[in-house]
């Protein structure tokens, strides 16, 4: 009779007079989890999340095209110059992130971790991450400057469809970036606590997100520059 294969020595009893509650089963001694490794799962999850975010910005893009072409009330305006500076800052933060990952990747596994050179790599890896966070913050501040520039010209959210979409796109991107910064601090906390083991800190997943935010911003800048 085909049955399940139970490991030898398993002390599991099936009590048919039971209440239907699950039995208390312990794992076999020495059992090791078969689940996917944490960094693989988090990378898959992040790629999926990035697809969803990309899709939503695609929806906003098509909304903008339709709105722009369905009426003659689109008022073009000059994009604030600070946006271009911000772009460089965000690209810079992607570079600092990669530099940080290189430092962590250069740390050898297990055995020689206590050496001084490892400590240097670790410290510089963390410092580059702090720099990434700082550049991200400067980017958001720069976006606020851009909004103030627009407000000074009398362009607010509801003034005109062009300004509506400008605020919408830039604000949503900034919100996602701030969320990413939260993720960055989570990764930093993990790295500091686990002694710089990048594989289990979520750094690879975070970098997918951060580089995506960078690419997304470049795309949005081009879109706004061409259509606004």
């Amino acid at each position, binding site marked *: *009779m*085909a*049955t*399940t*294969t*139970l*490991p030898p020595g*398993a002390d*599991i009893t*099936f009590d*048919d*007079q*039971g*209440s*239907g*509650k*699950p*039995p*208390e*089963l*312990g*794992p*076999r*001694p*020495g*059992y*090791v*989890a*078969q*689940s*996917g490794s944490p960094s*693989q*799962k988090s990378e*898959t*999850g992040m790629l*999926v*999340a990035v*697809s*969803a*975010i990309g*899709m*939503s910005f*695609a*929806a*906003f893009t*098509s*909304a903008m095209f*339709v*709105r722009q072409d*369905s*009426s*003659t*009330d689109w008022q073009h305006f000059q994009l604030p110059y600070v946006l271009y500076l911000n772009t460089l800052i965000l690209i810079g933060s992607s570079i600092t992130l990669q530099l940080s990952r290189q430092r962590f990747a250069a740390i050898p596994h297990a055995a020689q971790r206590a050496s001084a050179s490892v400590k240097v790599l670790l410290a510089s890896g963390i410092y580059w991450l702090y720099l990434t966070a700082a550049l991200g913050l400067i980017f958001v501040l720069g976006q606020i400057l851009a909004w103030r520039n627009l407000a000074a010209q009398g362009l607010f*959210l*509801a003034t005109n*469809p062009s300004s*509506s979409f400008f605020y*919408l796109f830039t604000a949503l991107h900034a919100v996602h970036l701030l969320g990413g910064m939260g993720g960055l601090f989570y990764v930093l906390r993990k790295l500091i606590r686990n002694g710089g083991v990048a594989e*289990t800190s979520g750094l690879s997943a975070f970098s997918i997100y951060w580089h995506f935010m960078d690419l997304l911003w470049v795309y949005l800048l081009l879109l706004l520059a061409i259509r606004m």
Partner: protein
Amino acid sequence: MHDTSAAHAAHQHAAPTSFIRKHIFSLDHKVIGKQYYGLALLAVFIGMALSWLMRIHLGWPAWPIPLLDKLSAVGAPQGVMTPEYYLSLMTMHGTIMVFFVLTNAPFAAFGNYFLPIQIGAEDMAFPRFNMMSFWVTFTAFLVMMAAFFVSDGPPISGWTAYAPLSAVGGDAGPGLALGQTLWAISIAIFCIASLLGALNFIATTLDLRTKGMSLARMPASSWAWFVTAVISLLAFAVLLPACILLILDRVAGTSFFIPAGLILSDKLQPHSGGSVLLWQHLFWFFGHPEVYIAILPSIGIVCHILPVFARKPLLGLRAAVGCMIATGFLSYMVWGHHMFVSGMSPFSANLFSVPTLIITIPMTILTLLLIGSVYGAKMRFTAASLFCLGFISVFISGGISGFFLAQPSIDIYLHATYFVVAHFHFVMAVASLFGVFAGTYFWFPKMFGRMMNETLGKLHFWLTFIGVYCIFMPMHYLGLAGNVRRYSAFVDDYLIPLIPVHKFITIAALLTGAAQFIFLFNLIWSRFKGPIASENPWEATSLEWSTTSPPPFDNFGGRHIVVYNGPNEYGVENNGTDFVMQVSPEKISAS
């Protein structure tokens, strides 16, 4: 966190001990699945009650409904609902049913419970996101329910919330002020929850399959949940922007959807330049994949369950999976078939009509595979298998009307008539729900360790099966006769002769609704008093039947599950039985 002690190494998170961690804020996918099911159960009875109110009003418009004036004194003075309140109830009925029942029950509830087990994992990939996605869904539900109790009542724009009616605000009528805003906020929250859930399903399926569980050996239901999750991810990612734009139009004074020159309640609206069609495009770009999100998990569940009771393998599991994937892919190309009469270019109608007709091909193949799977079978008739067979019947009934609606020439006549109502109720409300019923009767022993009552189950099936045909078949006739939908009363000359049909439908609806209480009673009674279930009462092959009923906290009791066979080994001679379990090392066929 690396905890190397044997007790914790086997699971990503330790077994909970407190009541709150065990039953309320649980990270365990099994508890979360049951929570989703409970939410769907609550929502379906609310949605059904709303449909009763609508149907009573349609059959007997002047008859005062007891207690309705307590729910809304403005909407139903002395218990007779105003036309606007009818539209409010219709809006909430559709919204609750489509979002909180049909997206929740077959996908989030059963998928959360059984996907990890069927692929041999201990839990979902991201248990904390999983818990979050349930509680965010629940929050969305509470916000939606709040719309009933605001002073103006719930929105009247339908579950489709077409602009400009949904975008202009309170000047346009009752329910369109705070009620509509709450609706939009609730749906936006629901989108976020769905996106989190879909992410979990995809990552789990890709990364957490146990040794030997290749994609080819995944059961049909797991495949259906995976494909649905992919569709869900991309579809809800478009509904969320649509809701954001709608909320901005409503509260921030933007004009994404509102054209110039609208005068409502003698007030010129301060918007201009917006595109009404834009809302329809965005909404239906989500809305059409959404209906496949509603039906595909049920198809997967039926494909999974039917072979168990036919004692024959599913005819063409790979073909069935291919059809699911093809359907998912094509579902993104057909949204315009909801908009044939919207004023968009009639030439684009062709562009949408062709893929709509093409999408009937994989759906038909799936149906034929199911029929072929039971052909020549010595069928075991249980409540679960009856609902699977009933699914085939109602899915064909609902699908055939789709052929007609796919063609613009006929759709111009049938659009917004009861023909459409019949079509989508058959495929969504009935077929999808039959899949949920089948899944419930099938998986209840595994989830709760007890069997449901078979006699009550069969009674529930026959009453429901006959009842839904009595309710929805006549609606095809009504639609062809020109009966417009979303009307609260029929006063035109050509509609008055159809009122007796409506009365018949109302009586059928009330009786069929009453029959659902048999199911509810069976569910609750069996939970506490049902006979104890064994590990594999149905003699099925898939992984969930290789563990105890109900499964232990980490699904397999710390065992290292290895899969040797596909899920379809039924009708094979194997040591006196006719099936080989997926975990069984006896090599019967090359899988």
